[in-house]
């Protein structure tokens, strides 16, 4: 990662539809260079994906539910992750270490949705306990895991100091 990589990242974070040609013009590079940098960062896993951020309240969603799950010691955590991942509306599942073993994020239209998912998680044999937190944030798929410009600005400042 160097300054050029970061500048390309910054441009695309602001608008990931921008053509490589336009970014190249702005940064005084060749379009080929920009494309190579993009592809390199994709390969290295720095870029998870170019995506769109949606506001799902526009199609009737009222928020997200965070499910904090405790795994039964008799089962592998991977089993819980696998089963929870199959549930409708659950868009992100991760193993976690701390007070809980698995976290699952789901988009919900109403409390009925959340209760339904909650019951389905409870039915999984490897699950011993489920706790829920609700939020009215309807941004999707901006996840609680992958960063965008919001924290990127901080990152940018940190790098500039070096």
């Amino acid at each position, binding site marked *: 990662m160097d300054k050029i990589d970061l500048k390309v*990242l910054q441009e*695309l*974070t*602001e*608008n*990931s*539809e921008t053509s490589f040609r336009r970014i190249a013009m702005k940064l005084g590079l060749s379009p080929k260079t920009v494309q190579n940098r993009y592809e390199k960062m994709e390969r290295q*896993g*720095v*870029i*998870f*994906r*170019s*995506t*769109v*951020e*949606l*506001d799902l*309240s*526009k*199609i*009737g969603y009222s928020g997200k539910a*965070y499910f*904090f799950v405790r795994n039964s010691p008799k089962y592998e955590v991977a089993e819980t*992750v696998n089963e929870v*991942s199959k*549930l*409708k*509306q*659950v*868009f*992100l*599942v*991760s*193993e*976690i270490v*701390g*007070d*809980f073993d698995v*976290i699952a994020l789901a988009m919900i*239209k109403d409390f009925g949705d959340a209760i339904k998912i909650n019951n389905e998680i409870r039915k999984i044999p490897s699950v011993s306990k489920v*706790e829920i*937190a*609700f*939020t*009215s944030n309807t941004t*999707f*798929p901006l*996840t*609680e*895991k*992958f*960063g*965008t*410009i*919001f*924290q*990127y600005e*901080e*990152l940018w400042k940190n790098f500039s100091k070096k």
Partner: protein
Amino acid sequence: MKDTVRIDEIDAKILRELIKNSRTKLKDLAEYCNVSINAIFKRIQRLKESGLIKRATLFTNMGALEYEISATIGINLNPDQEQNVMNLIRDKKMNLAAISRSMGKFDLCVFVMAKNLEEIEDLKRDLILQGINRVSVNFWGKTHVQYENVELKAVGR
């Protein structure tokens, strides 16, 4: 209830493709949805104007940028403590993926990315010093995304 937007199958298809890759060419979308490029352009325009598509952006994997630790911090607090806690977290200038006021198990869920454990320890200690006794820290491991699990279609009126 906010204004809802009616979307049809083709809109949903476009949205799913753009979530996967916002750089997908109009030509490819047109082929995939079996409509004209002009129709795709108009549909995307409408989805943007309605506010359903907020912006096209990039998900960066912070783990590959030295931010190797992601944690979820669940906090229980009294309403009069909220402002102080928000200020404390803001002043830390940590990399937040999200911060949400919530109901249920926690009152506040903070998703943070850090370069080392000390940053998280430091935050937890300062929260406790503020009189917040119930702080639940969970570190993230392997993450799986299934965006296609979320139903994309108009509801209600």
